[in-house]
């Protein structure tokens, strides 16, 4: 640090005390407190302002009516609420694609994390981690583009046709035809790819925190590698996996562009998987540019609803992850 100091008297100019330094300290501390508080202030300002802007719509529909109403017909007024605003089709679409994405992503993520930590040879681990992390670096709009022109045409569409044409598709409405390219299924698939790296990263960290003694004890008793993974590592990490899943769910609920382009923007919410629908984020992104002031309030109301849904999911996730961290020490989420 101070290579210029002699054995007896510190002469580093930068570290010498002075009256100025003494007065500066309380000021410096106040600045740090202010900076830390800025996070809370920004969060509070965002919630308060959007809620105030959205309040006319909530007042006219009622919060319950807004969340459960099925008709969304936009008015053109500049000063009052004249349209009917029921956000249920959007909430339904958001929840549907997010849960399908979670169902697909969680087992895959656990598999990737176990493979990286336990099966892969040491030289392969770092490249694998980098590769999976790169998935998280790809911008959402690029996922939208590639999903629109490549993935849904080459994979998801044909997969949907296959399932809808099979006995499963004939027996159930959910998997039944028609198969559209812009559908809940396409949106759920792109979400799966996008949340994989988040859930994988957390699983990898919690798996690595399982005490080596317990793994070694299981091996010493003659357990195979799979038995150690499935009966020691995964059960030990259960709450961490739940936390990671919730974080992935939070990300899936809030993902915008890829979903907006792929879900089909159909207001008729359908029980089928391969049919078009709409989600909360998609309707905001797709209709904002030509919305009348009244419709902007309604979009803000959707935004506030989305915020509170993701917030509850995230708070639950953070509490779970924090508890795991306290139990085993160290930090998980970057």
């Amino acid at each position, binding site marked *: 640090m101070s290579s210029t100091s002699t054995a007896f008297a510190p002469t580093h100019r930068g570290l010498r005390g002075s009256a100025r330094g003494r007065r500066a300290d309380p000021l410096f501390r106040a600045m740090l407190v202010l900076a830390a508080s800025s996070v809370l202030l920004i969060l509070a300002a965002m919630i308060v302002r959007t809620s105030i802007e959205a309040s006319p719509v909530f007042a006219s529909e009622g919060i319950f009516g807004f969340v459960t109403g099925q008709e969304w017909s936009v008015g053109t007024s500049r000063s009052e609420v004249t349209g009917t605003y029921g956000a249920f089709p959007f909430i339904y679409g958001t929840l549907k694609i997010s849960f399908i994405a979670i169902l697909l992503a969680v087992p895959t993520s656990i*598999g990737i994390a176990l493979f990286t930590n336990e099966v892969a040879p040491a030289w392969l681990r770092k490249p694998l981690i980098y590769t999976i992390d790169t998935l998280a670096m*790809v911008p959402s709009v690029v996922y939208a583009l590639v999903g629109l022109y490549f993935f849904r045409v080459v994979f998801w569409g044909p997969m949907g046709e296959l399932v809808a044409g099979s006995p499963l598709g004939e027996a159930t409405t959910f998997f039944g035809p028609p198969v559209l390219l812009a559908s809940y299924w396409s949106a759920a698939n792109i979400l799966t790819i996008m949340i994989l790296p988040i859930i994988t990263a957390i699983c990898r960290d919690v798996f690595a925190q399982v005490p080596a003694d317990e793994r070694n004890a299981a091996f010493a008793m003659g357990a195979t590698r799979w*038995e150690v993974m499935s009966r020691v590592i995964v059960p030990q990490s259960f709450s961490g996996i739940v936390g990671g899943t919730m974080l992935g769910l939070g990300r899936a609920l809030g993902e*915008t562009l890829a979903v907006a382009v792929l879900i089909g923007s159909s207001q008729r919410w359908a029980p089928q998987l391969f049919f078009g629908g709409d989600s909360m984020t998609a309707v905001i992104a797709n209709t904002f540019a030509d919305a009348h002031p009244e419709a902007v309030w309604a979009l803000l109301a959707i935004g506030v609803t989305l915020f509170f849904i993701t917030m509850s999911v995230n708070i639950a996730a*953070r509490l779970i992850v924090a508890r795991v961290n306290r139990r085993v020490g160290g930090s998980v989420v970057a």
Partner: protein
Amino acid sequence: MSIGTTTRTEADDLEPRSLLEVTSNARRRERISRIMSVVMFGCVMAAVVPLVLLLWQVVSNGATAFGWEFITRIEPLSYRDRGGGYLHGIVGTLYMTGIATLLAVPLGIAAAVYLSERPNGRYASVVRFFTDVMTGVPSIFVGLAVYALLVSGSGGFGLGFGTLAGATSLAIIMLPIVVRSSEEMLRLVPADLRAASYGLGAREWQTTLRVTLPAAAPGLTTGAILAVARGAGETAPLILTALGARQVVTSLTGAPQSDIGLLMLDGFTQPFDAGIERAWAGGLTLILITLLLSIGARIVASRRQI
């Protein structure tokens, strides 16, 4: 916990058995273990194959329109016309990301200094928790909130769509990432270093600015670059705050600003080949920007000494 090994007693089996003899049960369990390894490898492929396909698609489709002209010219007025490029979008993205960095990085590092110096303080834990929560706020909600706070005239500041509003929304998205990564890095600075500084009579602000921060500098840079990469790739909030423009915009407020992502969205939702080709090239540009930033972050991280 049962592992499935069967215990043999002498009553079952009077003949002495060799450890080298493998029972059929053990062989079965070993086979399951091997099959599951293959299944897990399949999971890895389920993530790696889409990534490879995605990069291949972006590179092969983007190469058509990408080139010197693409980064030095603006788009022609019609999506049918070939040629031209995303200069206005690149300028907008770099401009807004740059301002967002200036807003978010100093503030975030200052907040991180506060958090790292009070690991167990009650207020610090509250801030830390809500910073984590803020990481999960949907980016489109940040866009809506900045619209309501800064852009909209009724109750907001009424700045209108533009560079500053767009940059603010990006900064809000980057802030929690900077805070949490910086805090991790600052905590790695050995307490001895700080104690030595205090021992020499340094004040708190001197210790922080001249000892702690320089010692943690590479780590802080890594976190900041990753946050910048995240901000540069973000498009959703800009729909509501920057709005998009068809020419190079240099003013901070008053005029809607362009962005690579917004131009791509306009281009690929139109049914014209030339516009779609430019959108692919735009995607290639964005990927290059974010990947170069993340590689830069890794290089800086590898120089870390603490």
